[in-house]
């Protein structure tokens, strides 16, 4: 459960997001909005990216999210996927997952974790050597997206914000993505917030709420999902 109250995000004094009061409970939620309105900013500000100044309040499973360091937010169960995940030389994908799982106090059985990791990579067509590849280095945009998805599966957060998880993926991969996202939510008590423009993804996931961000940095949250389909058909100004 994530509740924002008058949540404002600024970069260098410029307001990007303005007084957002939103609520995300277990289930699937979609955030839409024209390019450049701060959809990614929303995710990163919640994760505690040091480039953003925040005001207002955010409650995350009863805790004051804004008072926490980034790693504490992750440990509290928050996960965001990155549009362009950062490459790290000399750090293998699995080594990274292992370290993250230790930090998050997850299953510490290396054998099991490696086997799950490989399964997940195979599902996504990443090849059998994926665990040894260096993190986000020499990977295509689509592969990096898939790697973020593996992390979602392995790190098993309470709430995940996925920033355009479908971009760079082909039709087949999107099918698997939808299955994996469904499976994640079906574990129960999981909250998934998807930032997307992609009609098919939204249709297939049949979200519980829709949040629309506008260019002034305001947000509107509704349970009327029809709005989403109207936007997908007619655009934000239609």
């Amino acid at each position, binding site marked *: 459960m994530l509740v924002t109250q008058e949540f404002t995000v600024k970069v260098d004094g410029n307001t990007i997001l303005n007084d957002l009061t939103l609520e995300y409970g277990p289930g699937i939620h979609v955030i839409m909005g024209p390019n450049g309105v701060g959809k990614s900013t929303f995710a990163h500000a919640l994760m505690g990216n040091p480039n953003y100044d925040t005001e207002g309040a955010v409650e995350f499973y009863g805790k004051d999210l804004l008072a926490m360091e980034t*790693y504490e937010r992750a440990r509290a169960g928050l*996960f965001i996927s*990155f549009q362009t995940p950062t490459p*790290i030389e000399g750090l293998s994908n699995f080594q990274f997952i292992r370290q993250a799982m230790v930090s*998050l106090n997850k299953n510490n059985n290396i054998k099991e974790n490696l086997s799950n990791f490989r399964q997940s990579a195979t599902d996504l067509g990443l090849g059998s050597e994926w665990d040894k590849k260096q993190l986000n280095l020499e990977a295509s945009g689509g592969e990096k997206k898939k790697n973020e998805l593996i992390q979602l599966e392995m790190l098993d957060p309470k709430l995940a914000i996925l920033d355009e998880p479908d971009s760079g993926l082909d039709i087949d991969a999107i099918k698997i993505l939808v299955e994996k996202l469904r499976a994640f939510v079906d574990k129960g008590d999981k909250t998934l917030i998807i930032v997307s423009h992609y009609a098919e993804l939204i249709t297939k996931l049949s979200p519980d709420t829709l949040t629309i961000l506008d260019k002034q940095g305001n947000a509107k949250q509704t349970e009327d999902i029809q709005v989403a389909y109207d936007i997908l058909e007619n655009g934000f100004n239609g």
Partner: protein
Amino acid sequence: MTDLNSIQENKYTAGFETITDSESFEPGLSEDIVKKLSALKNEPEWVTEFRLKAFAHLQTIKEPTWANVNYNPIDYQALSYYSAPKYRNKEDIPQEILDTFEKLGVPLHERDSLLGIENKDENIIPTVAVDAVFDSVSIATTFQEELKKQGIIFCSISEAIQEHSELVKEYLGSVIPSKDNYFACLNSAVFTDGTFCYIPKGVKCPMELNTYFRINARNTGQFERTLIIADADSYVSYLEGCTAPAYDENTLHAAVVELVTHDRAEIKYSTVQNWYPGDENGVGGVLNFVTKRGLCKGESSKISWTQVETGSAVTWKYPSCILRGDNSVGEFYSVAVTKGKQQADTGTKMLHVGKNTKSTIISKGISFGDSSNTYRGQVRIGKTATNSRNYTQCDSLMLDNSKAITIPVVSQHNNSSIVEHEASAGKLSEEALYYLQSRGLDEENAVSLVVNGFCKDVFQKLPLEFAAEANQLLNVTLEGAVG
């Protein structure tokens, strides 16, 4: 400030002092001291001569000033040139000294090396033999008998001078003449102990040979002297580790290490240097002024230096290779980490003389705080070194106000050789740290993963047991460097 200091000192886990009865020379450096030292060690005349010649030359030269380091002038007359714990024989080593090495994780009893192996089969060959040096003397050398069966000599240099005088005489100073530089000259006059290894023709040394240097006495210089000879078609992997107590005064460590490989022989020399780095304000710490050089004397021979440098207040060190034999190979892999007020000026020289010689240099410098970290390298491809190759890669990673400087010098005197150089310098990426933290890693762990990844190419060159130790040491070093 007191708090910061105590934290810093706690991080350096080897900073304890051992209280033991010792026998030391009065401070001062003179011809008499050199003679006294030689007499005490009951050395043959040629060694005394070797020392006295060096001492005479020392009077005519000055400390080098070209390195990118600053330190208070060393008062050579205020140092003691010999300090050794008092005991009668090797069966009578004081408990506190045994405890010291145990605390440092250095196995002095041969059976200890086998601990952890469940099946204590007598035929199991241990993986590491140790020579432990405490201040000016070697305390114990393990598995000498075992090694002797294959004709391998592994002992302290003092013992070698007594037992294998001709062999030592042939090679001592043959790679690093005593006139080479100020610190090598000083060492040649007053060297105390170190390790001697000889691997006979065709023998692959079955275990890693490890020397552990421990400085304990205050105001005492440590002048280690190591000599490793690999005869034709032989192989040895040698490891060197070192620590010192956290004293407020600087401690001088001026070592000379000489390696010689004959035809098709290979020496793999690895160092994890963890001398006391001084406190947060740059008080105390070891002055590590070391001359290390290997001579690939025979054809197709190979010398490989791998170093992980995390300690010392000031490091001045350029493990080098003279590639004299045709088709010989020289390698230098280095990770140098500086934090606080530490200063490192380190790198290598690759001197190509023989035909088809090949050298590789990979240097990773990581600097934190107010430290400075200089890579200084020289690649010289001589006229006779036709069809030779060098590949150099130096990368630096910086944080805070630290400085990283790269000074590569290349000179090529024939047209058939190829020299390649790649370099990168960058700040530790905030973005990478944020990414890792978003997955639950705290800042220290995040920095450690990034730095470990940065060093991976070099760590992979270390022997397995050592790689784990280096890794752990790096992580301890990074603790407290961040924030």
